[in-house]
């Protein structure tokens, strides 16, 4: 199975995401922001970083990159897409996920080992977790505060599309402690914390993040 990992100018966690894909047993395929097609991949990871410096607004410039056209098209067709941090911000800007991510309530960049509850295990990226599982993976961002209109949040909650929730403290003031959400069909998932930094206890707080990259293997095979 091939999983594409996109690099925009300013993407930082692409090598980590590719490593996580490898650890999970899949083949990472490097996708460049200027690519017009997805090189035959079965799923796509939009990794973290500061694409285009995040100067205007996190994700605002990257969403217009050529590679995003096939990504949006494939996602609408059911291809699994995972947006991590800046990737999540890009997916929101691109309209694949609702809401927006604003400056952390504390106004500082926050990097900490964060406990998350897995609220939904029927997405392409969380099938391997137990319902309600608590996992520890790093959160690190400047603009991680999830915000949306009340009706949007009600819809997300009502349809069970909140995939991850912060527990033991909300690092950025997100509405409803929301750390990650999914599209209605559960194929597109975006989250602020970084599963690709939690694949090995040597270099991360746990190996809990590997579950996301493993889950997608099952979801595509099925």
């Amino acid at each position, binding site marked *: 199975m091939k999983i594409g990992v996109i690099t925009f100018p300013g993407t930082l966690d692409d090598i980590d995401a590719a490593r996580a894909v490898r650890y999970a047993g899949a083949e990472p395929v490097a996708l460049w922001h200027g690519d017009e097609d997805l090189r035959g991949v079965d799923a796509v990871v939009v990794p973290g970083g500061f694409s285009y410096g995040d100067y*205007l*607004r996190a994700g*605002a410039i990257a969403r217009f990159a050529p590679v995003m056209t096939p990504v949006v098209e494939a996602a609408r067709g059911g291809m699994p897409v995972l947006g991590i941090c800046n990737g999540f911000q890009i997916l*929101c*800007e691109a309209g694949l996920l*609702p*809401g*927006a991510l*604003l*400056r*952390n*309530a*504390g*106004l500082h960049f926050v990097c900490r080992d964060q406990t998350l509850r897995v609220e939904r295990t029927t997405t392409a990226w969380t099938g391997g977790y137990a319902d309600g599982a608590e996992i520890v993976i790093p959160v690190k961002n400047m603009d991680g*505060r999830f*915000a*949306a*209109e009340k009706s949007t949040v009600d819809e997300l909650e009502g349809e069970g599309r909140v995939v991850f929730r912060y527990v033991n403290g909300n690092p950025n*003031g997100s509405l409803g402690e929301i750390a990650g959400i999914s599209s209605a069909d559960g194929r597109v998932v975006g989250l602020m914390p970084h599963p690709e930094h939690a694949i090995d206890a040597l270099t991360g707080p746990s190996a809990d993040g590997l579950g996301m990259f493993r889950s997608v293997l099952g979801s595509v095979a099925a």
Partner: protein
Amino acid sequence: MARVVVDVMPKPEILDPQGQAVARALPRLGFTGISDVRQGKHFELEVDDSVDDETLAKIAEGFLSNPVIEDFTVRRIGA
């Protein structure tokens, strides 16, 4: 050539921690009488006369601001 100013502000119902931090700091610095502060972005564009208002609105709405969370205003200054 015209100068165009676009101001982008967080929607009133969206929490604005940056503005709040300023409002909280002012009394500490000895400035009283400021009851509320909101912080947004200010853009100044040098624009060709060929660019019409509709295009400017598109740029402001579709790119310089995110309508989910922000409002914007566009002003032309001088000509």
